[in-house]
Protein backbone atom coordinates (compact mmCIF):
# COMPACT_ATOMS: atom_id res chain seq x y z
CA UNK A 1 0.00 0.00 0.00
CA UNK A 2 1.32 3.40 -0.98
CA UNK A 3 1.82 5.81 1.92
CA UNK A 4 0.85 9.44 1.48
CA UNK A 5 2.90 12.19 3.11
CA UNK A 6 1.11 14.43 5.67
CA UNK A 7 1.82 17.49 3.51
CA UNK A 8 0.20 15.90 0.47
CA UNK A 9 -2.72 14.77 2.60
CA UNK A 10 -3.33 18.31 3.88
CA UNK A 11 -2.95 19.73 0.37
CA UNK A 12 -5.45 17.24 -1.03
CA UNK A 13 -7.90 17.95 1.79
CA UNK A 14 -7.70 21.71 1.29
CA UNK A 15 -8.08 21.22 -2.45
CA UNK A 16 -11.16 19.02 -1.89
CA UNK A 17 -12.78 21.66 0.34
CA UNK A 18 -11.99 24.35 -2.25
CA UNK A 19 -13.45 22.25 -5.09
CA UNK A 20 -16.57 21.48 -3.06
CA UNK A 21 -17.02 25.17 -2.19
CA UNK A 22 -16.61 26.10 -5.85
CA UNK A 23 -19.16 23.49 -6.95
CA UNK A 24 -21.58 24.65 -4.25
CA UNK A 25 -21.16 28.29 -5.29
CA UNK A 26 -21.83 27.38 -8.91
CA UNK A 27 -24.91 25.39 -7.92
CA UNK A 28 -26.34 28.46 -6.17
CA UNK A 29 -25.38 30.88 -8.98
CA UNK A 30 -26.91 28.58 -11.60
CA UNK A 31 -30.32 28.87 -9.92
CA UNK A 32 -30.42 32.43 -11.27
CA UNK A 33 -29.04 31.59 -14.73
CA UNK A 34 -30.59 30.12 -17.86
CA UNK A 35 -31.10 27.43 -19.01
CA UNK A 36 -33.04 26.08 -16.03
CA UNK A 37 -33.74 22.39 -16.04
CA UNK A 38 -37.13 22.45 -14.31
CA UNK A 39 -38.14 18.98 -15.52
CA UNK A 40 -34.92 17.54 -14.08
CA UNK A 41 -35.60 19.30 -10.78
CA UNK A 42 -39.13 17.91 -10.56
CA UNK A 43 -37.81 14.44 -11.40
CA UNK A 44 -35.16 14.68 -8.68
CA UNK A 45 -37.73 16.04 -6.20
CA UNK A 46 -39.81 12.93 -6.88
CA UNK A 47 -36.85 10.59 -6.34
CA UNK A 48 -35.55 12.42 -3.27
CA UNK A 49 -38.81 13.51 -1.68
CA UNK A 50 -41.41 10.90 -2.49
CA UNK A 51 -38.79 8.15 -2.61
CA UNK A 52 -37.52 8.99 0.88
CA UNK A 53 -40.98 9.26 2.40
CA UNK A 54 -41.25 5.67 3.75
CA UNK A 55 -37.92 5.79 5.62
CA UNK A 56 -38.62 9.29 6.93
CA UNK A 57 -42.08 8.25 8.15
CA UNK A 58 -40.73 5.15 9.90
CA UNK A 59 -37.73 6.95 11.39
CA UNK A 60 -39.83 9.86 12.65
CA UNK A 61 -42.54 7.67 14.14
CA UNK A 62 -40.24 5.32 16.04
CA UNK A 63 -37.91 8.09 17.20
CA UNK A 64 -40.87 9.92 18.73
CA UNK A 65 -42.12 6.67 20.22
CA UNK A 66 -38.82 5.70 21.83
CA UNK A 67 -38.30 9.26 23.03
CA UNK A 68 -41.62 9.13 24.86
CA UNK A 69 -40.76 5.73 26.28
CA UNK A 70 -37.36 6.82 27.60
CA UNK A 71 -38.31 10.26 28.93
CA UNK A 72 -41.59 9.21 30.55
CA UNK A 73 -39.70 6.73 32.69
CA UNK A 74 -37.30 9.41 33.92
CA UNK A 75 -40.01 12.04 34.28
CA UNK A 76 -42.14 9.60 36.32
CA UNK A 77 -39.44 9.55 38.99
CA UNK A 78 -40.09 13.27 39.50
CA UNK A 79 -43.81 12.86 39.15
CA UNK A 80 -43.80 14.80 35.88
CA UNK A 81 -45.00 12.24 33.34
CA UNK A 82 -47.37 14.85 32.02
CA UNK A 83 -44.39 16.69 30.54
CA UNK A 84 -43.67 13.82 28.12
CA UNK A 85 -45.42 15.58 25.27
CA UNK A 86 -43.35 18.70 25.82
CA UNK A 87 -40.05 16.78 25.74
CA UNK A 88 -41.06 14.87 22.63
CA UNK A 89 -42.19 17.95 20.76
CA UNK A 90 -39.17 20.09 21.61
CA UNK A 91 -36.69 17.29 20.88
CA UNK A 92 -38.33 16.32 17.62
CA UNK A 93 -38.94 19.79 16.23
CA UNK A 94 -35.70 21.45 17.28
CA UNK A 95 -33.28 18.57 16.84
CA UNK A 96 -34.18 15.00 16.06
CA UNK A 97 -36.63 15.59 13.20
CA UNK A 98 -34.22 17.58 11.02
CA UNK A 99 -31.06 15.66 11.99
CA UNK A 100 -32.46 12.15 11.62
CA UNK A 101 -34.23 13.06 8.40
CA UNK A 102 -30.95 14.55 7.18
CA UNK A 103 -29.02 11.39 8.05
CA UNK A 104 -31.62 9.14 6.42
CA UNK A 105 -31.77 11.23 3.24
CA UNK A 106 -27.95 11.41 3.21
CA UNK A 107 -27.73 7.62 3.43
CA UNK A 108 -30.23 7.18 0.65
CA UNK A 109 -29.63 10.11 -1.70
CA UNK A 110 -26.05 11.34 -1.22
CA UNK A 111 -24.97 7.79 -2.06
CA UNK A 112 -27.37 7.68 -5.01
CA UNK A 113 -26.08 10.95 -6.41
CA UNK A 114 -22.44 10.00 -5.92
CA UNK A 115 -22.88 6.64 -7.61
CA UNK A 116 -24.95 8.00 -10.50
CA UNK A 117 -22.67 10.95 -11.26
CA UNK A 118 -19.59 8.83 -10.51
CA UNK A 119 -20.66 6.24 -13.09
CA UNK A 120 -21.27 9.01 -15.59
CA UNK A 121 -17.82 10.44 -14.84
CA UNK A 122 -15.86 7.22 -15.28
CA UNK A 123 -17.71 6.32 -18.49
CA UNK A 124 -16.95 9.79 -19.95
CA UNK A 125 -20.65 10.74 -20.01
CA UNK A 126 -19.84 13.96 -18.14
CA UNK A 127 -17.21 14.84 -20.76
CA UNK A 128 -19.71 13.91 -23.47
CA UNK A 129 -22.23 16.27 -21.90
CA UNK A 130 -19.68 19.10 -21.90
CA UNK A 131 -18.73 18.20 -25.48
CA UNK A 132 -22.39 18.47 -26.46
CA UNK A 133 -22.47 22.02 -25.12
CA UNK A 134 -24.27 21.36 -21.83
CA UNK A 135 -22.99 22.56 -18.48
CA UNK A 136 -23.08 19.51 -16.13
CA UNK A 137 -23.32 21.93 -13.20
CA UNK A 138 -26.59 23.33 -14.53
CA UNK A 139 -27.96 20.05 -15.83
CA UNK A 140 -26.95 17.70 -13.01
CA UNK A 141 -25.91 19.58 -9.87
CA UNK A 142 -28.33 22.50 -9.56
CA UNK A 143 -31.52 20.41 -10.03
CA UNK A 144 -30.31 17.95 -7.38
CA UNK A 145 -29.34 20.67 -4.90
CA UNK A 146 -32.59 22.63 -5.41
CA UNK A 147 -34.73 19.50 -5.19
CA UNK A 148 -33.00 18.23 -2.04
CA UNK A 149 -33.24 21.59 -0.26
CA UNK A 150 -36.91 21.91 -1.19
CA UNK A 151 -37.85 18.36 -0.26
CA UNK A 152 -35.82 18.23 2.96
CA UNK A 153 -37.90 21.15 4.27
CA UNK A 154 -41.12 19.17 3.85
CA UNK A 155 -39.66 15.80 4.83
CA UNK A 156 -38.54 17.31 8.14
CA UNK A 157 -42.04 18.63 8.83
CA UNK A 158 -43.46 15.18 8.08
CA UNK A 159 -40.83 13.57 10.31
CA UNK A 160 -41.67 15.99 13.16
CA UNK A 161 -45.36 15.25 12.85
CA UNK A 162 -44.83 11.49 12.75
CA UNK A 163 -42.52 11.79 15.77
CA UNK A 164 -45.27 13.51 17.73
CA UNK A 165 -47.74 10.83 16.66
CA UNK A 166 -45.25 8.12 17.70
CA UNK A 167 -44.85 9.83 21.06
CA UNK A 168 -48.61 10.00 21.40
CA UNK A 169 -49.06 6.27 20.76
CA UNK A 170 -46.60 5.40 23.53
CA UNK A 171 -47.92 8.05 25.92
CA UNK A 172 -51.56 7.11 25.41
CA UNK A 173 -51.47 3.35 24.97
CA UNK A 174 -48.44 2.35 27.07
CA UNK A 175 -48.00 5.05 29.71
CA UNK A 176 -51.64 5.90 30.04
CA UNK A 177 -51.40 9.67 29.63
CA UNK A 178 -54.49 11.59 28.67
CA UNK A 179 -54.63 12.30 24.91
CA UNK A 180 -55.76 15.87 25.33
CA UNK A 181 -53.05 16.52 27.92
CA UNK A 182 -50.36 15.13 25.58
CA UNK A 183 -51.40 17.21 22.58
CA UNK A 184 -51.93 20.35 24.66
CA UNK A 185 -48.46 20.07 26.17
CA UNK A 186 -47.00 19.32 22.74
CA UNK A 187 -48.63 22.33 21.14
CA UNK A 188 -48.20 24.82 23.97
CA UNK A 189 -44.53 24.10 24.58
CA UNK A 190 -43.56 25.01 21.03
CA UNK A 191 -42.53 28.60 20.46
CA UNK A 192 -41.97 30.29 17.13
CA UNK A 193 -38.22 30.11 17.79
CA UNK A 194 -38.33 26.31 18.05
CA UNK A 195 -40.23 26.00 14.80
CA UNK A 196 -37.86 28.42 13.07
CA UNK A 197 -34.85 26.40 14.19
CA UNK A 198 -36.54 23.22 13.04
CA UNK A 199 -37.15 24.68 9.58
CA UNK A 200 -33.76 26.35 9.02
CA UNK A 201 -31.78 23.19 9.70
CA UNK A 202 -33.29 20.93 7.02
CA UNK A 203 -32.62 23.56 4.37
CA UNK A 204 -28.93 23.58 5.29
CA UNK A 205 -28.80 19.81 5.59
CA UNK A 206 -30.44 19.42 2.18
CA UNK A 207 -27.78 21.64 0.66
CA UNK A 208 -25.01 19.63 2.35
CA UNK A 209 -26.44 16.27 1.22
CA UNK A 210 -26.79 17.20 -2.44
CA UNK A 211 -23.61 19.25 -2.81
CA UNK A 212 -21.47 16.60 -1.09
CA UNK A 213 -23.10 13.77 -3.07
CA UNK A 214 -22.58 15.60 -6.37
CA UNK A 215 -19.03 16.63 -5.46
CA UNK A 216 -17.91 13.07 -4.69
CA UNK A 217 -19.67 11.76 -7.81
CA UNK A 218 -18.07 14.31 -10.11
CA UNK A 219 -14.61 13.73 -8.64
CA UNK A 220 -14.81 9.93 -8.90
CA UNK A 221 -11.96 8.29 -10.76
CA UNK A 222 -10.59 4.82 -11.21
CA UNK A 223 -13.49 2.81 -12.66
CA UNK A 224 -16.14 0.99 -10.68
CA UNK A 225 -13.92 0.79 -7.60
CA UNK A 226 -13.65 4.58 -7.68
CA UNK A 227 -17.43 4.89 -7.91
CA UNK A 228 -17.82 2.64 -4.87
CA UNK A 229 -15.29 4.70 -2.95
CA UNK A 230 -17.01 7.94 -3.92
CA UNK A 231 -20.36 6.57 -2.77
CA UNK A 232 -19.04 5.59 0.65
CA UNK A 233 -17.17 8.86 1.10
CA UNK A 234 -20.25 10.87 0.13
CA UNK A 235 -22.42 9.23 2.82
CA UNK A 236 -19.75 9.50 5.50
CA UNK A 237 -18.86 13.12 4.69
CA UNK A 238 -22.49 14.25 4.39
CA UNK A 239 -23.46 12.55 7.67
CA UNK A 240 -20.53 13.93 9.64
CA UNK A 241 -21.01 17.38 8.13
CA UNK A 242 -24.70 17.34 9.09
CA UNK A 243 -23.83 16.63 12.74
CA UNK A 244 -21.04 19.23 12.84
CA UNK A 245 -23.12 21.91 11.14
CA UNK A 246 -26.04 21.03 13.42
CA UNK A 247 -23.97 21.93 16.48
CA UNK A 248 -22.78 25.25 15.07
CA UNK A 249 -26.12 26.30 13.61
CA UNK A 250 -27.86 25.45 16.91
CA UNK A 251 -25.33 27.60 18.79
CA UNK A 252 -25.69 30.40 16.26
CA UNK A 253 -29.49 30.39 16.33
CA UNK A 254 -29.52 30.23 20.14
CA UNK A 255 -27.10 33.15 20.16
CA UNK A 256 -29.50 35.07 17.94
CA UNK A 257 -32.20 34.42 20.52
CA UNK A 258 -33.86 31.60 18.59
Amino acid at each position, binding site marked *: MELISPVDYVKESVQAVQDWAELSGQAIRNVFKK*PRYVADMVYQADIIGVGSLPIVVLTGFFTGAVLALQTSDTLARFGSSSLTGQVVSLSMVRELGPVLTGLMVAGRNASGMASELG*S*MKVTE*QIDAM*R*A*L*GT*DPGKKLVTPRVSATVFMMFFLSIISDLLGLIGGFFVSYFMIGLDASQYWTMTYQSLRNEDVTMGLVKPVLFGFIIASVGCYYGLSAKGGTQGVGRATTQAVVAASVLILVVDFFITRLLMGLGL
Partner: protein
Amino acid sequence: MARHIAISFEDVSISFEGNLVLDGISFVLERGETKILFGVAGAGKSTILKLALGLLKPDHGSIHVLGHDVTQMREEELFQLRRQIGMVFQESALFDSLKVRENVAYRLIEEKDIPPEEVESRVREALRFVELERTLELMPSELSGGMRRRVAIARAIVTQPEILLYDSPTGGLDPITSTRIIELIVKQRDVYKTSALMVTHRLQDGFIMASHHFDQQSGHMVENAPGEKTDANTSFLILRDGKVIFDGAAPELAHNTDEYIKEYIS
Protein backbone atom coordinates in the same frame (compact mmCIF):
# COMPACT_ATOMS: atom_id res chain seq x y z
CA MET B 1 -6.07 33.09 -37.82
CA ALA B 2 -6.53 32.06 -41.47
CA ARG B 3 -10.08 31.08 -42.37
CA HIS B 4 -8.94 27.86 -44.04
CA ILE B 5 -7.64 26.50 -40.75
CA ALA B 6 -9.98 24.40 -38.59
CA ILE B 7 -7.63 23.58 -35.71
CA SER B 8 -4.09 24.69 -34.93
CA PHE B 9 -1.87 23.64 -32.03
CA GLU B 10 1.11 25.86 -31.32
CA ASP B 11 3.82 24.62 -28.95
CA VAL B 12 1.29 22.85 -26.70
CA SER B 13 2.47 21.05 -23.58
CA ILE B 14 0.52 19.31 -20.85
CA SER B 15 1.47 17.08 -17.98
CA PHE B 16 -0.53 14.97 -15.54
CA GLU B 17 0.76 14.43 -12.00
CA GLY B 18 4.28 15.34 -13.05
CA ASN B 19 4.31 13.20 -16.23
CA LEU B 20 4.84 15.21 -19.39
CA VAL B 21 2.31 13.83 -21.86
CA LEU B 22 2.58 16.39 -24.66
CA ASP B 23 5.82 18.29 -25.07
CA GLY B 24 5.52 21.37 -27.27
CA ILE B 25 3.50 19.89 -30.11
CA SER B 26 2.40 21.98 -33.10
CA PHE B 27 0.25 21.05 -36.08
CA VAL B 28 -2.50 22.43 -38.27
CA LEU B 29 -5.74 20.81 -39.42
CA GLU B 30 -7.10 22.57 -42.46
CA ARG B 31 -10.78 22.84 -43.24
CA GLY B 32 -12.01 19.74 -45.01
CA GLU B 33 -8.91 17.81 -43.99
CA THR B 34 -8.92 14.57 -41.98
CA LYS B 35 -5.84 14.02 -39.86
CA ILE B 36 -5.22 10.60 -38.36
CA LEU B 37 -3.32 10.51 -35.08
CA PHE B 38 -1.10 7.50 -34.45
CA GLY B 39 1.01 6.66 -31.44
CA VAL B 40 1.47 3.99 -28.83
CA ALA B 41 -0.92 3.80 -25.87
CA GLY B 42 -0.39 6.74 -23.53
CA ALA B 43 1.22 8.89 -26.24
CA GLY B 44 -1.35 11.63 -25.66
CA LYS B 45 -3.59 11.12 -28.70
CA SER B 46 -6.89 11.33 -26.80
CA THR B 47 -5.49 14.25 -24.82
CA ILE B 48 -5.10 16.17 -28.09
CA LEU B 49 -8.81 15.71 -28.83
CA LYS B 50 -9.82 16.82 -25.32
CA LEU B 51 -7.54 19.86 -25.61
CA ALA B 52 -9.07 20.77 -28.97
CA LEU B 53 -12.51 20.59 -27.40
CA GLY B 54 -11.43 22.67 -24.40
CA LEU B 55 -12.19 19.80 -21.99
CA LEU B 56 -8.59 20.13 -20.80
CA LYS B 57 -6.38 23.22 -20.57
CA PRO B 58 -2.74 23.00 -21.67
CA ASP B 59 0.09 24.00 -19.34
CA HIS B 60 1.70 25.89 -22.19
CA GLY B 61 0.97 26.94 -25.77
CA SER B 62 -2.12 28.00 -27.67
CA ILE B 63 -4.88 26.10 -29.45
CA HIS B 64 -7.08 27.75 -32.04
CA VAL B 65 -10.32 26.11 -33.10
CA LEU B 66 -12.38 27.75 -35.87
CA GLY B 67 -10.51 30.97 -35.14
CA HIS B 68 -11.05 30.95 -31.37
CA ASP B 69 -8.24 30.54 -28.87
CA VAL B 70 -9.76 27.83 -26.66
CA THR B 71 -7.01 28.22 -24.06
CA GLN B 72 -8.27 31.70 -23.25
CA MET B 73 -12.00 30.95 -23.31
CA ARG B 74 -14.21 30.50 -20.25
CA GLU B 75 -16.30 27.34 -19.95
CA GLU B 76 -19.48 29.31 -20.77
CA GLU B 77 -17.96 30.52 -24.07
CA LEU B 78 -16.66 27.04 -24.85
CA PHE B 79 -20.19 25.61 -24.70
CA GLN B 80 -21.10 27.81 -27.67
CA LEU B 81 -18.01 26.76 -29.64
CA ARG B 82 -18.52 23.08 -28.86
CA ARG B 83 -21.86 23.21 -30.64
CA GLN B 84 -19.87 23.41 -33.88
CA ILE B 85 -17.80 20.36 -33.01
CA GLY B 86 -18.85 16.72 -32.79
CA MET B 87 -16.97 14.18 -30.73
CA VAL B 88 -17.11 10.40 -30.79
CA PHE B 89 -15.69 9.10 -27.51
CA GLN B 90 -13.55 6.01 -27.13
CA GLU B 91 -16.23 3.99 -25.34
CA SER B 92 -19.09 5.85 -27.09
CA ALA B 93 -20.10 7.66 -23.86
CA LEU B 94 -23.79 7.37 -24.69
CA PHE B 95 -26.09 8.51 -21.87
CA ASP B 96 -27.11 5.14 -20.50
CA SER B 97 -30.36 6.36 -18.96
CA LEU B 98 -31.62 7.78 -22.27
CA LYS B 99 -32.96 5.92 -25.31
CA VAL B 100 -31.05 5.99 -28.61
CA ARG B 101 -33.53 8.58 -29.91
CA GLU B 102 -32.90 10.87 -26.92
CA ASN B 103 -29.14 10.37 -27.10
CA VAL B 104 -29.00 11.40 -30.74
CA ALA B 105 -31.50 14.23 -30.23
CA TYR B 106 -29.72 15.48 -27.10
CA ARG B 107 -28.04 18.52 -28.60
CA LEU B 108 -31.10 19.44 -30.68
CA ILE B 109 -33.35 19.28 -27.61
CA GLU B 110 -30.86 21.43 -25.67
CA GLU B 111 -31.14 24.10 -28.39
CA LYS B 112 -34.80 24.45 -27.27
CA ASP B 113 -35.91 26.47 -30.31
CA ILE B 114 -36.02 23.53 -32.75
CA PRO B 115 -39.57 22.20 -33.37
CA PRO B 116 -40.10 18.56 -32.26
CA GLU B 117 -40.95 17.46 -35.82
CA GLU B 118 -37.62 18.78 -37.07
CA VAL B 119 -35.78 17.12 -34.18
CA GLU B 120 -37.44 13.82 -35.08
CA SER B 121 -36.59 14.07 -38.78
CA ARG B 122 -32.97 15.03 -38.10
CA VAL B 123 -32.54 12.21 -35.60
CA ARG B 124 -33.94 9.73 -38.11
CA GLU B 125 -31.70 11.12 -40.84
CA ALA B 126 -28.59 10.80 -38.63
CA LEU B 127 -29.52 7.26 -37.63
CA ARG B 128 -30.25 6.40 -41.26
CA PHE B 129 -26.75 7.63 -42.10
CA VAL B 130 -25.29 5.06 -39.71
CA GLU B 131 -27.90 2.48 -40.77
CA LEU B 132 -29.47 2.17 -37.33
CA GLU B 133 -32.88 3.77 -37.80
CA ARG B 134 -34.56 0.72 -36.27
CA THR B 135 -32.84 1.24 -32.90
CA LEU B 136 -34.67 4.50 -32.06
CA GLU B 137 -36.51 3.11 -29.05
CA LEU B 138 -33.69 0.95 -27.67
CA MET B 139 -31.52 1.71 -24.66
CA PRO B 140 -27.73 1.85 -25.16
CA SER B 141 -27.34 -1.29 -23.02
CA GLU B 142 -29.37 -3.21 -25.60
CA LEU B 143 -26.90 -2.40 -28.40
CA SER B 144 -23.69 -4.18 -29.41
CA GLY B 145 -20.33 -2.36 -29.14
CA GLY B 146 -20.29 -1.58 -32.85
CA MET B 147 -23.85 -0.29 -32.79
CA ARG B 148 -23.03 1.97 -29.83
CA ARG B 149 -20.14 3.50 -31.79
CA ARG B 150 -22.44 4.10 -34.74
CA VAL B 151 -25.04 5.74 -32.50
CA ALA B 152 -22.23 7.89 -31.06
CA ILE B 153 -21.33 8.91 -34.63
CA ALA B 154 -25.00 9.74 -35.30
CA ARG B 155 -25.09 11.87 -32.12
CA ALA B 156 -21.94 13.70 -33.21
CA ILE B 157 -23.13 14.44 -36.75
CA VAL B 158 -26.78 15.26 -36.06
CA THR B 159 -26.07 19.01 -36.00
CA GLN B 160 -23.72 18.77 -39.00
CA PRO B 161 -20.74 20.18 -37.09
CA GLU B 162 -17.80 21.82 -38.83
CA ILE B 163 -15.29 19.60 -37.06
CA LEU B 164 -15.49 15.98 -35.96
CA LEU B 165 -13.20 14.38 -33.40
CA TYR B 166 -13.06 10.58 -33.36
CA ASP B 167 -11.40 8.89 -30.39
CA SER B 168 -10.53 5.30 -31.39
CA PRO B 169 -13.86 4.72 -33.17
CA THR B 170 -12.86 1.17 -34.12
CA GLY B 171 -11.05 0.19 -30.92
CA GLY B 172 -11.95 -3.28 -29.68
CA LEU B 173 -14.25 -4.05 -32.61
CA ASP B 174 -14.10 -6.93 -35.06
CA PRO B 175 -12.63 -6.23 -38.54
CA ILE B 176 -15.98 -6.22 -40.34
CA THR B 177 -17.59 -3.76 -37.92
CA SER B 178 -14.42 -1.64 -37.95
CA THR B 179 -14.48 -1.39 -41.73
CA ARG B 180 -18.15 -0.46 -41.58
CA ILE B 181 -17.37 2.38 -39.18
CA ILE B 182 -14.44 3.57 -41.29
CA GLU B 183 -16.80 3.58 -44.27
CA LEU B 184 -19.15 5.88 -42.34
CA ILE B 185 -16.27 8.20 -41.47
CA VAL B 186 -15.16 8.27 -45.12
CA LYS B 187 -18.76 8.95 -46.14
CA GLN B 188 -18.95 11.86 -43.69
CA ARG B 189 -15.61 13.19 -44.96
CA ASP B 190 -16.49 12.95 -48.67
CA VAL B 191 -20.18 13.84 -48.58
CA TYR B 192 -20.16 16.66 -46.02
CA LYS B 193 -16.45 17.69 -46.28
CA THR B 194 -16.18 17.85 -42.51
CA SER B 195 -12.75 18.53 -40.97
CA ALA B 196 -11.75 15.72 -38.64
CA LEU B 197 -9.13 14.50 -36.21
CA MET B 198 -9.18 10.74 -35.74
CA VAL B 199 -7.26 8.84 -33.10
CA THR B 200 -6.64 5.20 -33.88
CA HIS B 201 -4.32 2.34 -33.04
CA ARG B 202 -5.20 0.51 -36.22
CA LEU B 203 -2.88 1.45 -39.07
CA GLN B 204 -5.14 -0.18 -41.63
CA ASP B 205 -7.95 2.25 -40.69
CA GLY B 206 -5.74 5.16 -41.65
CA PHE B 207 -4.53 3.61 -44.85
CA ILE B 208 -8.06 2.62 -45.90
CA MET B 209 -9.15 6.22 -45.35
CA ALA B 210 -6.24 7.54 -47.41
CA SER B 211 -6.76 5.07 -50.24
CA HIS B 212 -10.56 5.03 -50.52
CA HIS B 213 -13.32 7.46 -51.28
CA PHE B 214 -17.06 7.29 -50.92
CA ASP B 215 -18.96 6.66 -54.12
CA GLN B 216 -22.35 8.28 -53.74
CA GLN B 217 -23.79 6.43 -56.72
CA SER B 218 -23.10 2.96 -55.37
CA GLY B 219 -23.46 4.08 -51.76
CA HIS B 220 -20.21 2.38 -50.78
CA MET B 221 -16.58 3.13 -50.12
CA VAL B 222 -14.39 2.25 -53.12
CA GLU B 223 -10.62 2.13 -53.54
CA ASN B 224 -9.04 4.94 -55.50
CA ALA B 225 -7.89 3.78 -58.93
CA PRO B 226 -4.14 4.19 -59.54
CA GLY B 227 -3.50 7.77 -60.59
CA GLU B 228 -7.12 8.71 -59.90
CA LYS B 229 -7.46 12.22 -58.58
CA THR B 230 -9.78 12.41 -55.59
CA ASP B 231 -10.29 15.26 -53.18
CA ALA B 232 -9.86 12.91 -50.19
CA ASN B 233 -7.70 15.09 -47.99
CA THR B 234 -6.25 12.72 -45.43
CA SER B 235 -2.96 13.11 -43.60
CA PHE B 236 -1.16 11.43 -40.71
CA LEU B 237 0.39 12.62 -37.49
CA ILE B 238 2.54 10.32 -35.37
CA LEU B 239 3.36 11.01 -31.73
CA ARG B 240 6.27 9.67 -29.76
CA ASP B 241 7.28 10.63 -26.22
CA GLY B 242 4.97 13.63 -26.31
CA LYS B 243 6.39 15.02 -29.56
CA VAL B 244 5.22 15.00 -33.17
CA ILE B 245 7.65 12.88 -35.16
CA PHE B 246 5.69 12.83 -38.42
CA ASP B 247 3.06 15.08 -39.96
CA GLY B 248 2.27 14.46 -43.61
CA ALA B 249 0.40 12.49 -46.25
CA ALA B 250 0.37 8.74 -46.94
CA PRO B 251 3.09 8.68 -49.66
CA GLU B 252 5.51 10.59 -47.41
CA LEU B 253 4.73 8.22 -44.57
CA ALA B 254 5.31 5.16 -46.74
CA HIS B 255 8.71 6.48 -47.86
CA ASN B 256 9.84 7.83 -44.51
CA THR B 257 13.32 6.65 -43.50
CA ASP B 258 12.98 7.12 -39.73
CA GLU B 259 13.61 3.73 -38.08
CA TYR B 260 10.85 4.14 -35.48
CA ILE B 261 8.28 5.12 -38.11
CA LYS B 262 9.34 2.28 -40.40
CA GLU B 263 8.96 -0.16 -37.53
CA TYR B 264 5.64 1.39 -36.50
CA ILE B 265 4.05 1.08 -39.95
CA SER B 266 5.59 -2.28 -40.82
